[in-house]
Protein backbone atom coordinates (compact mmCIF):
# COMPACT_ATOMS: atom_id res chain seq x y z
CA UNK A 1 0.00 0.00 0.00
CA UNK A 2 1.60 3.20 -1.10
CA UNK A 3 1.95 6.15 1.24
CA UNK A 4 0.03 8.44 -1.11
CA UNK A 5 -2.99 6.16 -0.71
CA UNK A 6 -2.85 6.11 3.05
CA UNK A 7 -1.83 9.71 3.71
CA UNK A 8 -5.33 11.03 2.94
CA UNK A 9 -6.69 8.61 5.55
CA UNK A 10 -4.32 10.04 8.11
CA UNK A 11 -4.99 13.58 6.95
CA UNK A 12 -8.73 13.02 7.08
CA UNK A 13 -8.48 11.65 10.57
CA UNK A 14 -6.42 14.62 11.71
CA UNK A 15 -8.78 16.99 9.95
CA UNK A 16 -11.73 15.41 11.69
CA UNK A 17 -10.31 15.20 15.15
CA UNK A 18 -8.13 18.28 15.41
CA UNK A 19 -10.89 20.85 15.17
CA UNK A 20 -13.45 18.92 17.13
CA UNK A 21 -12.32 20.18 20.37
CA UNK A 22 -13.12 23.78 19.42
CA UNK A 23 -15.91 23.53 16.45
CA UNK A 24 -21.89 19.28 17.55
CA UNK A 25 -28.91 10.74 17.86
CA UNK A 26 -28.47 9.44 21.18
CA UNK A 27 -25.77 11.07 23.27
CA UNK A 28 -22.34 9.79 24.28
CA UNK A 29 -21.82 9.18 27.97
CA UNK A 30 -22.05 12.48 29.82
CA UNK A 31 -18.92 11.82 31.87
CA UNK A 32 -16.51 11.52 28.94
CA UNK A 33 -14.35 14.51 28.19
CA UNK A 34 -12.31 15.56 25.20
CA UNK A 35 -9.13 17.42 26.15
CA UNK A 36 -6.67 19.48 24.20
CA UNK A 37 -3.57 20.84 25.85
CA UNK A 38 -1.01 23.02 24.12
CA UNK A 39 2.18 24.20 25.76
CA UNK A 40 4.35 26.41 23.66
CA UNK A 41 7.60 27.80 25.00
CA UNK A 42 9.94 30.25 23.42
CA UNK A 43 9.78 34.02 23.43
CA UNK A 44 5.99 34.23 23.76
CA UNK A 45 4.93 31.22 25.79
CA UNK A 46 1.34 30.08 25.41
CA UNK A 47 -0.65 27.52 27.32
CA UNK A 48 -4.04 26.47 26.06
CA UNK A 49 -6.34 23.98 27.67
CA UNK A 50 -9.68 22.90 26.29
CA UNK A 51 -11.97 20.47 28.08
CA UNK A 52 -15.23 19.67 26.39
CA UNK A 53 -17.81 17.01 27.19
CA UNK A 54 -17.96 14.53 24.32
CA UNK A 55 -21.72 14.83 24.48
CA UNK A 56 -21.52 18.49 23.61
CA UNK A 57 -19.26 17.82 20.63
CA UNK A 58 -21.50 14.98 19.43
CA UNK A 59 -24.62 17.13 19.68
CA UNK A 60 -22.94 19.98 17.83
CA UNK A 61 -21.81 17.64 15.07
CA UNK A 62 -25.36 16.34 14.63
CA UNK A 63 -26.43 19.81 13.53
CA UNK A 64 -23.21 21.02 11.95
CA UNK A 65 -23.85 23.71 9.37
CA UNK A 66 -23.45 22.50 5.82
CA UNK A 67 -20.59 24.86 5.10
CA UNK A 68 -18.47 23.10 7.71
CA UNK A 69 -19.30 19.69 6.25
CA UNK A 70 -18.39 21.07 2.85
CA UNK A 71 -14.97 22.15 4.18
CA UNK A 72 -14.19 18.53 5.04
CA UNK A 73 -15.26 17.50 1.55
CA UNK A 74 -13.08 20.19 -0.03
CA UNK A 75 -10.04 18.96 1.92
CA UNK A 76 -10.66 15.46 0.66
CA UNK A 77 -11.11 16.72 -2.88
CA UNK A 78 -7.78 18.56 -2.63
CA UNK A 79 -6.14 15.31 -1.58
CA UNK A 80 -7.69 13.71 -4.66
CA UNK A 81 -9.96 11.35 -2.80
CA UNK A 82 -13.63 10.73 -2.34
CA UNK A 83 -15.16 9.37 0.84
CA UNK A 84 -16.13 6.27 -1.13
CA UNK A 85 -12.51 5.61 -2.06
CA UNK A 86 -11.31 6.21 1.47
CA UNK A 87 -13.96 3.88 2.80
CA UNK A 88 -12.76 1.15 0.41
CA UNK A 89 -9.18 1.78 1.47
CA UNK A 90 -10.14 1.58 5.10
CA UNK A 91 -11.92 -1.72 4.57
CA UNK A 92 -8.69 -3.16 3.20
CA UNK A 93 -6.74 -1.87 6.18
CA UNK A 94 -9.36 -3.20 8.56
CA UNK A 95 -9.28 -6.68 7.15
CA UNK A 96 -5.52 -6.95 7.11
CA UNK A 97 -3.34 -8.27 9.90
CA UNK A 98 -1.27 -6.00 12.09
CA UNK A 99 1.36 -4.49 9.88
CA UNK A 100 3.30 -1.39 9.04
CA UNK A 101 1.67 -0.35 5.79
CA UNK A 102 3.81 2.57 4.89
CA UNK A 103 7.25 3.79 5.84
CA UNK A 104 8.44 6.84 4.01
CA UNK A 105 11.85 8.28 4.72
CA UNK A 106 12.79 11.56 3.15
CA UNK A 107 15.43 14.13 3.85
CA UNK A 108 13.06 16.05 6.10
CA UNK A 109 11.01 13.45 7.83
CA UNK A 110 10.05 9.86 8.38
CA UNK A 111 6.43 8.80 8.20
CA UNK A 112 5.11 5.48 9.34
CA UNK A 113 1.53 4.24 9.14
CA UNK A 114 0.53 0.99 10.75
CA UNK A 115 -2.15 -1.05 12.39
CA UNK A 116 -1.49 -2.64 15.75
CA UNK A 117 -4.03 -4.46 17.87
CA UNK A 118 -7.10 -2.28 18.18
CA UNK A 119 -5.43 0.85 16.85
CA UNK A 120 -4.59 2.65 13.67
CA UNK A 121 -1.29 4.43 14.14
CA UNK A 122 0.54 7.14 12.28
CA UNK A 123 3.88 8.59 13.29
CA UNK A 124 5.84 11.43 11.75
CA UNK A 125 9.30 12.45 12.89
CA UNK A 126 11.09 15.45 11.46
CA UNK A 127 14.76 14.90 10.81
CA UNK A 128 16.12 18.25 12.00
CA UNK A 129 17.35 18.72 15.57
CA UNK A 130 14.41 19.47 17.78
CA UNK A 131 12.08 18.57 14.97
CA UNK A 132 8.47 17.73 15.59
CA UNK A 133 7.23 14.27 16.33
CA UNK A 134 3.58 13.61 15.70
CA UNK A 135 1.89 10.48 17.00
CA UNK A 136 -1.66 9.67 16.03
CA UNK A 137 -3.49 6.76 17.57
CA UNK A 138 -7.09 6.05 16.64
CA UNK A 139 -9.09 3.12 17.91
CA UNK A 140 -10.19 1.08 14.89
CA UNK A 141 -13.82 1.33 16.03
CA UNK A 142 -13.67 5.11 15.83
CA UNK A 143 -12.54 5.04 12.23
CA UNK A 144 -15.17 2.36 11.52
CA UNK A 145 -17.78 4.74 12.93
CA UNK A 146 -16.42 7.59 10.83
CA UNK A 147 -17.13 5.57 7.71
CA UNK A 148 -20.48 4.26 8.93
CA UNK A 149 -22.46 7.04 7.27
CA UNK A 150 -23.76 7.35 3.75
CA UNK A 151 -21.45 6.56 0.86
CA UNK A 152 -20.25 10.10 0.27
CA UNK A 153 -20.23 11.40 3.85
CA UNK A 154 -18.16 10.96 6.95
CA UNK A 155 -20.21 10.40 10.10
CA UNK A 156 -18.39 12.67 12.54
CA UNK A 157 -21.01 12.33 15.29
CA UNK A 158 -20.76 8.53 15.16
CA UNK A 159 -16.99 8.79 15.46
CA UNK A 160 -17.37 10.89 18.60
CA UNK A 161 -19.83 8.37 20.05
CA UNK A 162 -17.29 5.63 19.43
CA UNK A 163 -14.57 7.75 21.02
CA UNK A 164 -16.55 7.72 24.29
CA UNK A 165 -15.52 4.08 24.78
CA UNK A 166 -11.86 4.96 24.54
CA UNK A 167 -9.51 6.38 27.13
CA UNK A 168 -6.15 7.79 26.25
CA UNK A 169 -4.26 9.95 23.82
CA UNK A 170 -5.43 10.41 20.27
CA UNK A 171 -2.82 12.85 19.02
CA UNK A 172 0.45 14.02 20.52
CA UNK A 173 2.84 16.48 18.98
CA UNK A 174 6.11 17.65 20.42
CA UNK A 175 9.18 19.47 19.32
CA UNK A 176 11.80 21.52 21.15
CA UNK A 177 9.33 24.29 21.96
CA UNK A 178 5.85 22.87 21.75
CA UNK A 179 3.85 20.10 23.27
CA UNK A 180 0.35 19.26 22.11
CA UNK A 181 -1.79 16.50 23.44
CA UNK A 182 -5.34 15.51 22.51
CA UNK A 183 -6.97 12.84 24.61
CA UNK A 184 -10.18 11.44 26.04
CA UNK A 185 -10.95 10.43 29.61
CA UNK A 186 -13.61 10.64 32.28
CA UNK A 187 -12.30 13.71 34.09
CA UNK A 188 -13.67 17.22 33.68
CA UNK A 189 -10.28 18.82 34.24
CA UNK A 190 -6.65 18.24 33.58
CA UNK A 191 -4.79 17.06 36.63
Amino acid at each position, binding site marked *: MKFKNVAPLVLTALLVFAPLGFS*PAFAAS*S*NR*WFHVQVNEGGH*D*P*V*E*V*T*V*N*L*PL*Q*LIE*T*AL*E*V*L*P*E*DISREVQIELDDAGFTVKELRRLWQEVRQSDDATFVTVKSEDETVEVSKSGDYFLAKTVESRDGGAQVDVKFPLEVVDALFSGSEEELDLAAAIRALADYEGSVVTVHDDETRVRVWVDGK*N*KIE
Partner: protein
Amino acid sequence: MVKAIALSLLVVLVIIAGATVAAGAYVLSAGVGTVQVRTTGPEAVDLYLPVPVGLVDLGLSVASFAVPEEELAQLRHEMEDWPPLLESVTRELARCPDGTLVEVHTRDEKVLIVKDRGRLKIDVDAPDARVRVSLPARSLVRIGRKLDDLVDL
Protein backbone atom coordinates in the same frame (compact mmCIF):
# COMPACT_ATOMS: atom_id res chain seq x y z
CA MET B 1 -70.41 57.45 42.76
CA VAL B 2 -67.15 58.27 44.55
CA LYS B 3 -67.07 54.75 45.85
CA ALA B 4 -67.45 53.35 42.31
CA ILE B 5 -64.62 55.52 41.00
CA ALA B 6 -62.38 54.56 43.91
CA LEU B 7 -63.16 50.90 43.33
CA SER B 8 -62.40 51.22 39.61
CA LEU B 9 -59.11 52.92 40.36
CA LEU B 10 -58.22 50.20 42.82
CA VAL B 11 -58.94 47.51 40.24
CA VAL B 12 -56.78 49.31 37.67
CA LEU B 13 -53.95 49.67 40.19
CA VAL B 14 -54.16 46.00 41.10
CA ILE B 15 -54.06 45.05 37.42
CA ILE B 16 -51.06 47.30 36.81
CA ALA B 17 -49.28 46.00 39.91
CA GLY B 18 -50.03 42.43 38.94
CA ALA B 19 -48.78 42.95 35.40
CA THR B 20 -45.62 44.58 36.71
CA VAL B 21 -44.95 41.75 39.11
CA ALA B 22 -45.63 39.19 36.40
CA ALA B 23 -43.34 40.96 33.95
CA GLY B 24 -40.66 41.24 36.60
CA ALA B 25 -41.01 37.59 37.48
CA TYR B 26 -40.76 36.65 33.81
CA VAL B 27 -37.67 38.78 33.30
CA LEU B 28 -36.01 37.49 36.44
CA SER B 29 -37.01 33.87 35.90
CA ALA B 30 -34.37 33.61 33.20
CA GLY B 31 -31.80 34.67 35.76
CA VAL B 32 -29.47 37.57 35.92
CA GLY B 33 -26.22 37.82 34.07
CA THR B 34 -23.47 40.11 35.23
CA VAL B 35 -20.88 41.96 33.26
CA GLN B 36 -17.93 43.62 34.93
CA VAL B 37 -15.39 45.60 32.99
CA ARG B 38 -12.43 47.39 34.46
CA THR B 39 -9.86 49.11 32.28
CA THR B 40 -6.83 51.22 33.08
CA GLY B 41 -5.39 54.20 31.32
CA PRO B 42 -6.54 57.78 30.93
CA GLU B 43 -10.10 56.77 30.03
CA ALA B 44 -10.37 54.04 32.59
CA VAL B 45 -13.68 52.31 32.95
CA ASP B 46 -15.05 50.59 36.01
CA LEU B 47 -18.40 49.10 35.13
CA TYR B 48 -20.60 46.57 36.83
CA LEU B 49 -23.82 45.71 35.07
CA PRO B 50 -26.37 43.15 36.15
CA VAL B 51 -28.42 42.12 33.10
CA PRO B 52 -31.70 40.29 33.54
CA VAL B 53 -31.47 37.70 30.80
CA GLY B 54 -35.23 37.84 30.39
CA LEU B 55 -34.79 41.28 28.86
CA VAL B 56 -32.63 39.79 26.14
CA ASP B 57 -35.33 37.18 25.70
CA LEU B 58 -38.03 39.84 25.40
CA GLY B 59 -35.88 41.85 23.05
CA LEU B 60 -35.46 38.92 20.70
CA SER B 61 -39.21 38.27 20.84
CA VAL B 62 -39.93 41.86 19.94
CA ALA B 63 -37.31 41.87 17.19
CA SER B 64 -39.39 39.60 15.00
CA PHE B 65 -41.99 42.30 14.46
CA ALA B 66 -40.04 45.45 15.36
CA VAL B 67 -37.06 45.00 13.06
CA PRO B 68 -37.66 45.84 9.37
CA GLU B 69 -38.25 42.76 7.25
CA GLU B 70 -35.29 43.42 4.95
CA GLU B 71 -32.93 43.53 7.94
CA LEU B 72 -34.42 40.34 9.30
CA ALA B 73 -33.96 38.73 5.90
CA GLN B 74 -30.32 39.82 5.93
CA LEU B 75 -29.90 38.39 9.42
CA ARG B 76 -31.46 35.10 8.35
CA HIS B 77 -29.18 34.94 5.35
CA GLU B 78 -26.07 35.57 7.46
CA MET B 79 -27.03 33.13 10.17
CA GLU B 80 -28.35 30.45 7.81
CA ASP B 81 -27.74 27.07 9.42
CA TRP B 82 -26.15 28.29 12.64
CA PRO B 83 -29.15 28.64 14.98
CA PRO B 84 -29.76 24.87 15.38
CA LEU B 85 -26.07 24.52 16.25
CA LEU B 86 -26.31 27.39 18.73
CA GLU B 87 -29.41 25.91 20.31
CA SER B 88 -27.82 22.45 20.58
CA VAL B 89 -24.55 23.73 21.98
CA THR B 90 -26.25 25.99 24.52
CA ARG B 91 -28.51 23.13 25.60
CA GLU B 92 -25.55 20.84 26.14
CA LEU B 93 -23.59 23.58 27.89
CA ALA B 94 -26.47 23.99 30.31
CA ARG B 95 -26.52 20.23 30.95
CA CYS B 96 -22.85 19.43 31.06
CA PRO B 97 -21.01 18.94 34.35
CA ASP B 98 -19.07 21.77 35.91
CA GLY B 99 -15.55 22.24 34.74
CA THR B 100 -13.00 24.49 33.12
CA LEU B 101 -13.94 24.51 29.44
CA VAL B 102 -11.24 26.73 28.03
CA GLU B 103 -8.13 28.19 29.60
CA VAL B 104 -5.57 30.26 27.75
CA HIS B 105 -2.44 31.74 29.29
CA THR B 106 0.01 33.88 27.42
CA ARG B 107 2.74 36.06 28.84
CA ASP B 108 0.38 38.99 29.27
CA GLU B 109 -3.14 37.64 29.09
CA LYS B 110 -5.37 35.06 30.57
CA VAL B 111 -8.76 33.81 29.39
CA LEU B 112 -10.89 31.42 31.37
CA ILE B 113 -14.28 29.95 30.44
CA VAL B 114 -15.75 27.89 33.22
CA LYS B 115 -19.05 26.21 33.97
CA ASP B 116 -19.56 26.53 37.71
CA ARG B 117 -22.71 25.75 39.70
CA GLY B 118 -25.07 26.39 36.85
CA ARG B 119 -23.36 29.49 35.56
CA LEU B 120 -21.14 30.07 32.59
CA LYS B 121 -18.30 32.37 33.55
CA ILE B 122 -15.91 34.13 31.22
CA ASP B 123 -12.90 35.87 32.72
CA VAL B 124 -10.42 37.85 30.70
CA ASP B 125 -7.33 39.43 32.24
CA ALA B 126 -5.10 41.62 30.11
CA PRO B 127 -2.57 44.27 31.12
CA ASP B 128 -5.05 47.08 30.49
CA ALA B 129 -8.38 45.42 31.12
CA ARG B 130 -10.24 42.96 33.24
CA VAL B 131 -13.55 41.52 32.12
CA ARG B 132 -15.83 39.23 34.04
CA VAL B 133 -19.03 37.86 32.51
CA SER B 134 -21.32 35.48 34.34
CA LEU B 135 -24.54 34.05 32.89
CA PRO B 136 -26.96 31.43 34.10
CA ALA B 137 -26.20 28.49 31.82
CA ARG B 138 -29.89 27.74 31.33
CA SER B 139 -30.41 31.26 29.97
CA LEU B 140 -28.20 30.42 27.03
CA VAL B 141 -30.71 27.78 26.00
CA ARG B 142 -33.52 30.32 25.89
CA ILE B 143 -31.44 32.76 23.90
CA GLY B 144 -30.34 30.02 21.52
CA ARG B 145 -33.96 28.97 21.03
CA LYS B 146 -35.11 32.55 20.49
CA LEU B 147 -32.45 33.07 17.84
CA ASP B 148 -33.57 29.86 16.17
CA ASP B 149 -37.20 31.07 16.23
CA LEU B 150 -36.18 34.46 14.87
CA VAL B 151 -34.34 32.97 11.93
CA ASP B 152 -37.05 30.41 11.24
CA LEU B 153 -39.84 32.98 10.82
